[in-house]
């Protein structure tokens, strides 16, 4: 299993985490895995919605117990989405 591509969007407010994720995924092939790190709780709503319209799979999204309270999301790149 290849290492996930990490998008570090900690400290950025929405929609920047989505924009960074979108830019990272633009250069990846279907099946690749991306890990997004963010601190804005808005990603709980935005990343799943963005994945749904672009046909990517949000495999997990979880809060870390670290002091910085970062949220980690794992996305599997899809090959299409809404038409």
């Amino acid at each position, binding site marked *: 299993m290849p290492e996930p591509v990490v998008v570090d969007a900690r*400290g950025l*407010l*929405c*929609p*920047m985490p*989505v*924009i960074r994720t*979108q830019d990272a995924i633009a250069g990846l092939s279907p099946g690749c895995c991306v890990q997004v790190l963010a*601190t*804005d*709780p*808005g990603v*709980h*709503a*935005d990343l799943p*919605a*963005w994945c*749904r*319209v*672009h046909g990517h799979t949000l495999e997990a999204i979880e809060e870390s117990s670290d002091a910085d*309270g970062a949220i980690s999301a794992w996305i599997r790149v899809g090959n299409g*989405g*809404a*038409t």
Partner: protein
Amino acid sequence: MLAARVVKEQGVHVEGLNFYTGFCVEGHTHAVRAQDKARPKRNNALWVAEQLDMKLHIIDVVEDYKDVVINPRHGYGQFMNPCLDCKGFMVGKAREWMEANGFDFIITGEVIGQRPKSQLKRTMPVIASESGAHERLLRPLCAKLLEPTLPEREGWVNRDKLFDWSGRSRKPQMELAESFGFEDYAQPAGGCCFLTDPSYSRKLQDLWQARGARRYELDDIMLLKMGRHLRPRPHFKLIISREDGENRFMHGYRKQFTHLVPTSHGGPLALLDGEARDGDLELAARLVARFSQGRDADLVRVAVAERNGPERELTVTPMAADDVPREWYVA
């Protein structure tokens, strides 16, 4: 949203573009403040895309947008909103995207006369030409009041099935939304960004005045969205968080600013923007103490960490509410 749906209905493949300028009002950017949490925490553009089953591309235009805000050729609206320039800019960005991605035309949801200045019949061609989109810009909701555009003439869309709406009434839009089965159809009645907000506009003007130049960075305009802004001296202002959400967000900026936080009592984080001269830190500490739970105490201890400097503690008398001149409140 309606415009996209109307065209999609005709079998045209539509994808959405949403431009992020830094001034955008997001459900949850707004809701950094816990008290706003009752509002739906959603990104409106993404929500619309989901309703329409359409891809949405969110594009960062923060850098290029600066020139629109700083030097609008057509001036500002009621506040610091350069709506006409802004629309020309965004349609121009959409045209670039269209050309780069092999699309044929652009649609926008404008309705003639719906908004002052930027949605008048005479401004419609201004947007079309300044954006460079010209004939490839279609406004499905008022197309019948305008000259036929390329997509109509080429038969890519059927002009007969487009609309002729004008004026401020939203009734026909609500009815069409209902017929499409859109629940919770809520197009913002005011502006779509903080530049139409009077208090935000004041803070932006204050920032430019204090710096002696009309310029900003993304961090500046993000911080204008939070906290109380007080300018006790021309050379510095304090941004004092109002609650936990703002506190947490502003925490991320500590290293870039001199900052203060009460230690003997619960209280807000404050960032000092500008330079602190003799006695300014004490004044700042007294103000921060005023917004802490120790506001009625004789003395409050406040930790002060200077930017790139040491941290120390000041023991101060909180400022009385009456001693804070009204003109210190920027917003």
